[in-house]
């Protein structure tokens, strides 16, 4: 269950994809926030976060995702998620994340809908 924590970034001309691996808690969440904020500061405001390799997300991790949404909202950016499990998607909808960010089954559709 304690997967290695990792964050991969794939940047394209007009968007970036951030892929996380491991338990999305405060530790991985802070790394994720740091990388997302760096992209946003550099002017990249079209982001996809791929959670396919993140099997568990706790409420602190969700708080950090909301902070990223807020940072993008301030710059009129867009954030789409993909690779969520059924439980993760249900939790995101319950936490109102789906009101402020898109949820898509795969990376391709998440990018296409930025």
């Amino acid at each position, binding site marked *: *269950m*304690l997967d290695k924590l990792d964050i991969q970034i794939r940047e394209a001309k007009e968007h970036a994809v951030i892929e996380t691996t491991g338990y999305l808690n405060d530790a991985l969440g802070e790394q994720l926030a740091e990388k997302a904020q760096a992209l946003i500061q550099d002017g990249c405001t079209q982001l996809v976060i791929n959670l396919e390799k993140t099997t568990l997300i*706790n*409420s602190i991790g969700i708080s950090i995702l909301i902070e990223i949404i807020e940072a993008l909202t301030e710059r009129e950016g867009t954030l789409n998620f993909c690779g969520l499990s059924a439980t993760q998607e*249900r*939790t995101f909808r319950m936490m*109102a994340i789906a009101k402020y960010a898109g949820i898509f089954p795969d990376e391709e559709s998440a990018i296409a809908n930025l």
Partner: protein
Amino acid sequence: MSNEHKVLLTIPMYPDMELAAAKTGSVLAELKDFNEEAVEEIQLAIIETCINASEHSQSEDKEVHIQFLVTDDRLEVKITDRGVGITADTLDGTRLLGRPTVHTDLRKRGRGLQIIRALMDEVVIESSPNGTTVSFTKKKTPP
């Protein structure tokens, strides 16, 4: 093999120790063939309860005590800390719900309770100045 299994676990309030409790819950649920989604929901409820205990209980012994009871059709989890208890407005959710914007509604960590209530079939919270016990049950859905 008996149809009922009881497991007692005590974890210290260290970072990521909630995963040990979640893993125990998932093993017991898988033993009784709970589906994958139910196992993930159980893990998340255990994680959120243990994090709440670690972050908010102010427990002097810095321990979380977990009792698992699994039968053929349900998993019951009871998570106890010996902290200072939680307040009524947190218990009834008035601090957690109904906020209008992303800027204010979801930042508080107490939202873990909201997740637990949504994912589990039964949730009971008992709290006093001597500690808090959160009990929840997940019923197995027929295949």
